């Protein structure tokens, strides 16, 4: 515990810049994962406990694609598409069967998949820690903004994440597809009665969630090491994000992700041993004060 240092940090511009950029990175990646989680919950009413494993798959697929083609952005896109494809298979063959079953079955299917995917990754990529390494394009001297150090790659990550967020927002709010998805979330029976293929929507939403999680995994690969089982901590974090933002709300996920990003980054200065605890404190406060989350409409 060192609140003194936290105080010193928030009074110096360089420290604020450095920590804010770190917080934004953490937040941006969390947002991508949490947006998929909250979207799936909003439309299908199930929590995909295996969502963290999709992030893990994305990271490993990105690693392989990067080694094959030596192009970071191509690797990110391929990883996203690969995980999206996997998500559709996962949804059509397995999750679809437990939508109407009780939570116990949904939980068990996801539990099984977390176990299986962790071992598949171990089989294919090995059990030891791996790292993609910083792509050469971004091996540039860091920028100095107001005395704070900001690596160029951080800016790239933020831009890409922001771009994805804008596209997601546009598709959901301003296209016919988005309207259909929102309709299916609101009233699935009515939607299918109107002749819309809800099964296709469900598969599509899962694919979208997988795409986002897969891209997040590959995007993060240069700055994080990967190992089987890495998906679980991000699952818990993105769950906290969705609770803070409100389940089912994508804009809430954005707010929640940024809040958690900042809590993590500034909290690690003041309370290095209690960063995770801080996130939980934030979540419990929200649950007690505003059970629906910051931006949620539905009561939990």
């Amino acid at each position, binding site marked *: 515990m060192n609140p003194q240092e936290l105080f010193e940090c928030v009074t110096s511009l360089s420290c604020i810049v450095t920590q804010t950029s770190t917080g934004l990175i953490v937040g941006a990646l969390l947002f991508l994962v949490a947006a998929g989680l909250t979207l799936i*919950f909003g439309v299908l*009413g199930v*929590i995909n406990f295996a969502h963290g494993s999709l992030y893990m798959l994305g990271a490993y697929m990105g690693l392989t694609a990067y080694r094959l083609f030596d192009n970071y952005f191509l690797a990110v896109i391929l990883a996203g598409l690969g995980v999206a494809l996997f998500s559709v298979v996962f949804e059509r063959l397995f999750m679809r069967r437990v939508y109407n079953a009780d939570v*116990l079955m949904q*939980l068990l299917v996801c*539990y099984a998949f977390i176990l*299986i995917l962790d071992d598949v990754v171990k089989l294919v990529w090995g059990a030891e820690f791996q790292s993609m390494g910083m792509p050469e394009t971004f091996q540039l001297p860091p920028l100095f903004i107001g005395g704070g150090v900001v690596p160029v790659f951080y800016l790239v990550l933020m831009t890409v994440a922001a771009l994805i967020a804008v596209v997601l927002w546009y598709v959901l709010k301003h296209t016919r597809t988005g309207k259909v998805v929102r309709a299916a979330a609101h009233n699935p029976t009515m939607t299918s009665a109107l002749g819309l293929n809800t099964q296709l929507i469900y598969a599509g939403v899962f694919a979208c969630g997988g795409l986002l999680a897969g891209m997040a995994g590959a995007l993060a690969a240069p700055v994080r090491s990967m190992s089987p089982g890495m998906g679980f901590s991000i699952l818990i974090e993105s769950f906290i994000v969705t609770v803070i933002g409100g389940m089912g709300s994508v804009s809430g996920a954005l707010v929640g992700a940024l809040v958690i990003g900042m809590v993590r980054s500034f909290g690690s200065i003041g309370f290095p041993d209690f960063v995770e605890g801080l996130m939980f404190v934030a979540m419990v406060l929200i649950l007690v004060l505003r059970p629906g989350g910051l931006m949620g409409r539905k009561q939990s």
Partner: protein
Amino acid sequence: MNSTGTLSKELLIAIVAMLILAAIPFFTPSRLIADFVIRLAAFGVFATSLNILIGYGGMVSFGHAMFFGGGAYAFGLLMQKAGTSIPLALLGAIVFCALLGLIVGAICVRLKEIYFSFLTLAFAMLTYSVILSWMSLTGGDQGLMGGIPRPVFLGIDLSNGQHLYWFACVLAVVCLLLMRLLMQSPFGYTLRMVRDNPERARFLGVDVWRTRLYAFVLSGAFAGVAGSIMALFVSGAYPEFTYWTMSGEAIFMILLGGLHVYIGPVVGAALLMMFNDVITRYTDLHGLALGIIVLIFALGFKRGITDFAVRLFRPASKKKETRQVTT
């Protein structure tokens, strides 16, 4: 309902179970079997305590391992650092888990289904990370090392394998009996009503929140006993006790054994332990094998072993037990 009748029936079953358990060492001197029974005592109580929430309360907790680990650590620390006697440490572990259940439950039981599952999971992971980071007290990822002292009490010496075996068996049978009586009590039936129709229960003047909270605290306290048995058996406590896979396994034990029959989770625990022992003997891809088995049961059979047995032996006539869970 004739409550004294049920009581004596349950007591009789418990005594018979105890006699069978006590007889096992006389038939086979195998250390392996005895160890299996001790582990089963821990996991059977653990799974049954979770079934209070899942089967009887309709609350699918995915973080029950926090009480298993919490009990193990509380028990181990009381023995190691405070040097209390074993019954006192056991009591301490129970009180600790009940308090933990009170705090976590007060926040969680208000929430609906899947939300509740995820939040309990999050709390279990918080417990896990607290254990990992509080090195000075818990020993971090190494676990509670150095062994747990086993001072003799009332002439029982738990460093003796035979005594430990009996102690674990008695503890487990007493816990199972207590939970059974609780579930057959008015409280148990109120809990079932809250599960099936909370609205109606509320109209009848039942405090739904309080009923669920009591169930949560009770199940946490019993899981604490299970953790203490485990801590005694392995003579230590490890962070893995609170890891999410432990919660997942307990849930699978319930499904495997069947949640419609009281003893189902214990049967499931025994089956899963056997699966695990076989799997680890043949492959190190333990997760892959277990995952596939879980999928087969969750999507294929959709019910546990004891449910099949009940269907087989008591067609239609014995619907009373089966109707307990209608989800």
